[in-house]
């Protein structure tokens, strides 16, 4: 049984514990508390706990302050994290619906494979969100209903989503749309794959979600996209073009 580590300190202990409890239920894991030291080395303590073989993921509070421990852990953790933004209400809330934003890359889809599988097994409602941008929007969109149907079916198929997964598509800023859709659809968790780069101009959706979402955000580290793959799983890889 995998361990779900609830990282608690004075400020957010209750909320984190409640979220960790829900996550542990989802992954059929064992809840373990990690009380942080007050001194320096808090991030190292979390990473060290995650390094343990039985640790599956950690749940910790997130803070807008860039110097906060959560940002350090995010960048360095090889295992998934569930970050609890400040706006998440107190109290245990079972995870009944998970929002999985996918940017169309194979890597992002692969990153959330496990999450998807867990959700399916747990009977959790899975909502996939794709926000079109100028690299992923299809060049041709003939008849809106039929095109949407065809595109949706293909997107879900290529990401090997379960048959009952639902796709929401939006256009515009991904960060805004992720939060908006999570709220509108009443998601209990947002699951995001990310490349662990927080440099300026990158991971905008992740940065926004982990502080502004009103639900917990699961981050799953992913490798950088393959050069051959192109920006979208819907775009054929170079080596697979027809000859």
């Amino acid at each position: 049984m995998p361990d779900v580590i609830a990282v608690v300190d004075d400020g957010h202990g209750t909320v984190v514990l409640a979220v960790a409890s829900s996550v542990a239920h989802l992954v059929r894991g064992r809840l373990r508390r990690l009380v942080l030291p007050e001194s320096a080395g808090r991030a190292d303590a979390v990473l060290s706990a995650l390094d343990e073989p039985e640790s599956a993921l950690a749940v910790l509070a997130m803070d807008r302050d860039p110097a906060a421990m959560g940002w350090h852990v995010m960048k360095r953790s090889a295992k998934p994290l569930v970050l609890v933004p400040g706006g998440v209400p107190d109290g245990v809330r079972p995870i009944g619906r998970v929002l999985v934003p996918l940017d169309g890359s194979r890597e992002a889809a692969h990153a959330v494979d496990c999450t998807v599988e867990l959700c399916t097994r747990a009977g959790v409602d899975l909502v996939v969100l794709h926000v079109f941008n100028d690299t992923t929007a299809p060049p041709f969109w003939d008849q809106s209903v039929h095109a949407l149907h065809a595109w949706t079916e293909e997107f879900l198929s290529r990401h090997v989503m379960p048959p009952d997964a639902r796709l929401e598509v939006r256009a515009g800023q991904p960060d805004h749309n992720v939060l908006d859709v999570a709220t509108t659809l009443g998601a209990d968790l947002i699951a995001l794959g990310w490349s662990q780069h927080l440099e300026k101009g990158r991971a905008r959706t992740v940065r926004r979600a982990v502080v502004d979402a009103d639900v917990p955000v699961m981050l799953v580290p992913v490798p950088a996209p393959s050069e051959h793959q192109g920006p979208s799983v819907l775009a054929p890889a170079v080596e697979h073009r027809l000859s």
Partner: protein
Amino acid sequence: MGRHDLPDITAAAVVFDWDGTAVPDRHSSAGAVRRRVERLCSLGVHVAVVSGTHVQNVDGQLRARPSGPGRLLLATNRGSELFEVEPGGPVLRERRWASPLEDAGLDKAAADLRQQLSAVGLHTDVVTRLNRRKIDLIPDPDWADPPKARLTELLVAVTRRLADAGLADLKDVVCRATSAAVGAGLADPRVTSDAKHVEIGLTDKSDAMRRLLRELWQVGVGPGLVIVVGDEFGSLGGAAGSDSFLLVSRARRATVVSVGAEPCGVPPGVTHLAGGPATFLALLDDQLARHRHRRVPGVDRDERWTITQAGDDPVRLRVLETLFTLGAGGLAVRGALDAPSVPVLRAAGVYHQQGSAQRLLPGPDWTHVRLRPRPKEVVQVLDLRTGVLLREERELADVGRPVRSLRFVSAARPGTMGLRVEAAAHRLAPGTVFRAPEGLPMAQGRVGGQRWARVASDLGGGMGAVAQQAVSQDGDLRCVERLVVVTSHRRRQPDLGLDAASDAVRHGFSPLLAAHRAAWARRWSSAGASLPDDPQLERALRFALFHLWGAIADADELAVGARGLSGPGYSGHVFWDADVFVLPAVATIDPAAARAMVRYRLHRLDPARARARAEGRHGARFPWESAASGDDVTPPTVRFGAEPTPVMSGRQEEHITAAVAWGVLREAAWGGRRLQPGSAELALLRDTARYWVSRCTVDADGAAHITGVVGPDEYHEAVDDNAFTNVMARWNLRAAAAAVSRRAASPDEARSWLALADALVDGLDASTGLYEQFRGYHALAPVLAADLAAPPYAADVLFGRQRIAATQVIKQPDVLMLHHLVPDEVAAGSLLPNLAYYGPRTSHGSSLSPAIMASLLARAGSPDEALSFLRMAAQIDLADAHGMSAAGLHLAAMGGAWQAVLMGFLGARVRSGTLLIDPVLPADWGSFEVRFRCLGHQLRVRVDRQSTEVNVEGRLRVGVGRRPPRSVTGTFVVDTTVGRRDSSRRGAEEAPCRT
């Protein structure tokens, strides 16, 4: 030598040398060859003999009288004659006759050579044959007629004789013969040697081979399906072996085998088996065994004609299912592997369910066989030339013999389909023939030795299938063969094709495949494009034509959905794509199918009338999306974002009504048909005109308007006086007034149509030639497409409908579509200003857009820019950059691409029973050739920088460029270089133009 030494190919044709290869000498019995040749022909394998001797020698010895379907050809007299053996014996198909001058040249060359050799003490004799002279280098009774078995011995004797005369070798004599021939004035002498003779001729076996390959090509057999067998491919005493002339460049994909002694070895690419006629017989036996064991045939891997996909990327699987769809006769089978993602079988016009959910009924899946483990590292080859799909697993150590399969959907016998699969016996189980499409009940059973299955539509129609499955074993290989006959009916349960299935079984897989290949070859000889400088585009255009053919049929009626029969996308719904994009293309490749498309609309005139009535209008209004009944099946809302939004196309894209009328007249014009009084076509023209009368409003100034519509640019909804809609309505009114007889409409009514047409506003600014796309368009935010993103892009998806609707960015040609469809209805000279204005405002967010732009740009004198758009259009499914090809092929883009070639680059138009062409060439093309049907005639047009060559079967009035049209037949050439006069050649027959 065992079977494993023989070539691993199940060939469609065998070409072989006679003397020394098939028989030891000219006196031996050829009974063993005869039996095998006749048997191969009965299986649909074509057989050809190549010989230096005359036909009496070969036929007298072979005496084969095959009854087909494979052909037996005799290419005799060293490439100068071609005979085809019919039941009564050989019939001359072609003979090369030497001119008196050439005959004299041959005599002189032979005499000169003989004199030269005599001067060095070598006595020779000269033998005269058709188109050649044989100089006998060893006129010794002991060597009068040496069998091929003594070739090495003969070569030694001749070489010794030459050496005694101070000559180096045979090659030395061949060189002297060549010099003598050139000296005698022969322009292209062919000098060969079989060791005993040196022959100076006008033809050689290379001519025979080229001719045979041409014959085989015409029945769908490319060089890669041919086995060539000879005994003298290697050199003889330094001179080229006589069979080496069979190795012409066009035969480079053929499998070449030598059964001769080949004392000097064989050239690269030739497999040396030795063994003489015995080996040859073994090779024929192996071919027969392959057919008997139901081995998987090969394909000719000509990269200009094949689409090859290596690898098994799961992401691409569904796309490949679509791309590798095979169709004929209104039935199509997706190219699914063993686990199809969506149903594989569909029939044109057979729908299921109601309303906007109505979709094509999936039929029984007959393609599944059980393979364990499943194939890995599969290479798939779609042969566009012959309409077959081949799959081959790469040879892997752990699974034994690789899996191979081939399937076809017969173009020769609509409804008949075939599949062969071979694999290591332990991996392949034939399993159940039929699988039900997901979510639908399927009845099935057995009749005699055949299995049947049916799937029923809740609308009353259905699909049925009957299959005969056979399993055989060839060593450690198991082979499964299925012959299936599929039937369908849109209103009732179809009869099972039991008789057709029995007939198919009686014919057998190989003959059916041979007939199918030949049918495809006939198609390609009637329509297609050759772009010598642009092979990638050439293949993409072939891919487009291939799938257009696959989606059509000469039937009672033909519903062509937006994605054809290749996938579930667009539910098989019929849009204006069919009338405006697909139909004009189909009219040039299969006029009968184009008529069937028109009949689909004619049969739905009553529902169109009912809709008009229901909306308080007159006449007939056709639906934006149509399926079984002709009622509108457009989905009412789309949910892109949080809330569903209404889809306006079903309510407001009224231009479809004029597009249907346009399609009817277009088919008639290209088919050269006059619409008969009382015909349904004229009724449709009349009723669509009446619709526009009731739809227009006339203001106080007498100007007529159409308000609240959506034009082809779907980014702007509920607009007034959309130029496209208004001008198409105007065209519709005028066309009806011109065509409809007095019995169908009164003269007063026809006059009222003309008056209304004149009153319809069209947004034209006469001072600039610019049309305003709709009232108020010019006042929108002046945003160009490139200001937002790099076209092509779906602007509505990317930026939202509301934002785009406030700008001048449009989805696809709207005003410009008028210049494509009804150029006579727009102001003269208005193409250029409208292209300049609307081109930069077009995002090309519709797959219909690039092809039309290509056509218009070509007409506007910008062929290079046109070519970029044509490439884009032709790649829409092959590249699948939009990620939606898995749902089906974009047939309108394919039809549009073919239109861009014919109507754009060739500039083809039909006016008053005359074909007008006005070609343009982009810089990247030195020339291009197109073949198509028009006005009941078959045409071939070749265009290069100097001239345009037109070949017409029959007599047709044709105009080229600005020259006046004239009645022509055969081939004629027009010098299209500016300032030069016309010329004609090759028996061109031109008659003066009659006005």
